[in-house]
């Protein structure tokens, strides 16, 4: 692999305001950017990460050391790179297309070719139809798309990005980040490498093949972490979480040595990740009572569906629920009551609630988690939104809402917690149920 940019023993010092002394922004930085990789420079404010990027772009000179671009010492502005700015940096008096053509014009490209290339770049970033719009007419996300088009149209060897998504709202940033990642992964990217400066750990792990961690005061390279995940990097992958955790630990502890060896961490699966079958308690107990009447407490599944005039698909959530709660087993096309299931189906309503509660708490982790949350709260209650957010992390929103509704139905029946629809809160009933 060849080095597109190499930074050697680079120091950067700025004069203090008093003019007498200097402070060191970057200390002995060594860094290489190879062809075909995405590198993230991750650091907190004061780590000099933006300064380092600007030195590599040739916008400011180093105090000591040198930058090699394609093996040649860099003098003046680096012609082999293009930059995307945090603030978009669009000229407000030029249209989208004129902004995109800026760099081409500076390189003396003739007008027709300029137009051709800029239209292609505008198309690539999804701004087709906005060529003649002025920056003030378009949203922040679209402005940054112009920023990307303006840089990519130059087909630079290295695309430098200075916190390109941090001025955007979360959703817009997520969207644009994903699209840039898709472009890169599709091997159709007009640059050979990407160097992104960021303070966002997840963003760094999501985009980069290699995360270079900078320390602060003075800015220096502490080490790097290889993101050994297949592209695109899957946020749900346990390794993703382990890498984020590791980098987070390193970033919050300035004294830890960055070794880059990230131990595989097996996270316990979130209780909210396990889907509850959408079966109401009434339906579950009805099914169990029906089974209890059969000799041996067992029934052929298609026959059961027929008796209930339900399709097997409609029956499925009820089967899953009974199995999940340990009330029945399904084997060989038959459903068979367990002893607890028989007990549940035949005892008094009060005792069946006790049984249901026991089974739910011991077999469905989410109830244990909700209960724990409520018990930890002084007022023994919590906004529904809190729980919905936890489900949202694992399910699309509509499904998360259904999960919540099912949990409320089960939890109410089991008298684990109460739900106040007016205030949209879950709270513990009095007295506290004994788990």
């Amino acid at each position: 692999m060849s080095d597109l940019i190499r930074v050697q023993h680079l120091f950067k010092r700025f004069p203090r305001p008093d003019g007498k002394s200097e402070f060191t922004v970057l200390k002995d930085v060594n860094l290489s950017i190879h062809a075909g990789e995405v590198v993230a420079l991750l650091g907190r404010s004061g780590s000099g990460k933006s300064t380092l990027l600007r030195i590599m772009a040739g916008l400011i000179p180093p105090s000591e050391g040198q930058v090699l671009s394609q093996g040649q010492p860099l003098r003046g502005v680096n012609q082999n790179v293009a930059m995307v700015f945090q603030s978009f940096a669009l000229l407000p008096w030029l249209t989208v297309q004129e902004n995109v053509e800026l760099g081409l014009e500076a390189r003396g490209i003739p007008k027709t070719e300029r137009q051709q290339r800029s239209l292609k770049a505008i198309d690539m970033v999804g701004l087709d139809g906005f060529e003649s719009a002025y920056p003030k007419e378009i949203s922040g996300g679209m402005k940054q798309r112009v920023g990307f088009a303006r840089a990519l149209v130059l087909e630079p060897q290295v695309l430098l990005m200075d916190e390109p998504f941090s001025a955007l709202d979360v959703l817009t940033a997520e969207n644009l980040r994903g699209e840039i990642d898709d472009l890169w992964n599709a091997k159709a990217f007009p640059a050979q490498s990407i160097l992104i400066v960021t303070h966002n750990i997840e963003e760094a792990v999501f985009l980069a093949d290699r995360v270079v961690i900078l320390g602060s005061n003075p800015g220096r390279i502490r080490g790097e972490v290889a993101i050994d995940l297949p592209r695109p990097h899957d946020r749900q992958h346990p390794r993703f979480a382990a890498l984020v955790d590791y980098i987070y630990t390193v970033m919050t502890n300035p004294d830890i040595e960055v070794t880059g060896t990230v131990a595989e961490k097996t996270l316990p699966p979130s209780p909210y990740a396990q889907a509850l079958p959408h079966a109401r308690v009434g339906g579950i107990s009805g099914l169990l009572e029906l089974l209890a009447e059969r000799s041996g407490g067992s029934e052929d599944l298609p026959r059961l569906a027929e008796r209930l005039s339900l399709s097997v698909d409609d029956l499925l959530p009820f089967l899953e629920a009974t199995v999940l709660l340990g009330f029945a087993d399904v084997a060989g096309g038959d459903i068979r009551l367990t002893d607890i299931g028989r007990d549940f189906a035949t005892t008094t309503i009060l005792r069946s609630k006790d049984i249901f509660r026991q089974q739910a708490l011991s077999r469905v982790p989410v109830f244990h988690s909700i209960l724990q949350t409520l018990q930890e709260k002084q007022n023994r209650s919590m906004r529904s939104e809190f729980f919905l957010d936890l489900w949202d992390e694992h399910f699309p929103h509509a499904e998360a809402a259904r999960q919540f509704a099912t949990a409320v139905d089960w939890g109410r029946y089991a008298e684990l917690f109460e739900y106040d629809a007016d205030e949209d809160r879950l709270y513990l009933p009095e007295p506290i149920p004994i788990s």
Partner: protein
Amino acid sequence: MLLVWIVHFVSTSLGLGEVLKTFALALLTLLRVSLLLVVASLIWTPIGVAIGFQPRLARALQPIVQFLASFPANFVFPFATLLFIRSHISLDWGSILLMALGSQWYILFNSIAGAQRIPTDLREMAAAMGLHGWQRWRQLIIPGIFSAWVTGAITASGGAWNASIVSEIVSWGSTTLQATGLGSYIAEATTQGDWPRITLGIAMMSLFVVGLNRLLWQRLYQLAETRYHL
């Protein structure tokens, strides 16, 4: 009311011919003011931008420029007059320099301020994109300082019209130099205590200044506010 009185006063005592004469004189002075603005802009805008782009230089030079702008230029007039006499420069041209002595600083002053107001990230972007020479002026600097320049040019133009009254007629010892223009017309009428001519001259100058404001400066302001707003 005032206008009616002016028209009545002037027409009864001077006649239309005098009005046309002052109009022609005003055109001449307008030509001087315009030339002044163009030349002063060509000279001082690049210097102002160069200063404005260097924060330390700007900080050091700002008070000096402010001093120059507030310095009463007519203190220098006698020396300039002497120079014109010695080197046989007609005051028709020399008056432009005299008018510029007081007003050119507004152009410099506002160019500095305008350049300072161009956001650093835009300048950085321009550098990163490799903008240089005329392209850099055309796409970054001129639009960037445009609204500041308009402010400076309006002030300079107003100052220059005023200064024309003292610049188009100057003396050194017994020698008096005079340029053809509305300024010298007003100055002469004032020395003679000729009320109708003073009134006509000042009315004509006001007409030109207000007319220019309406026709030119306000439009440029609007352009600055809409198109070239940072």
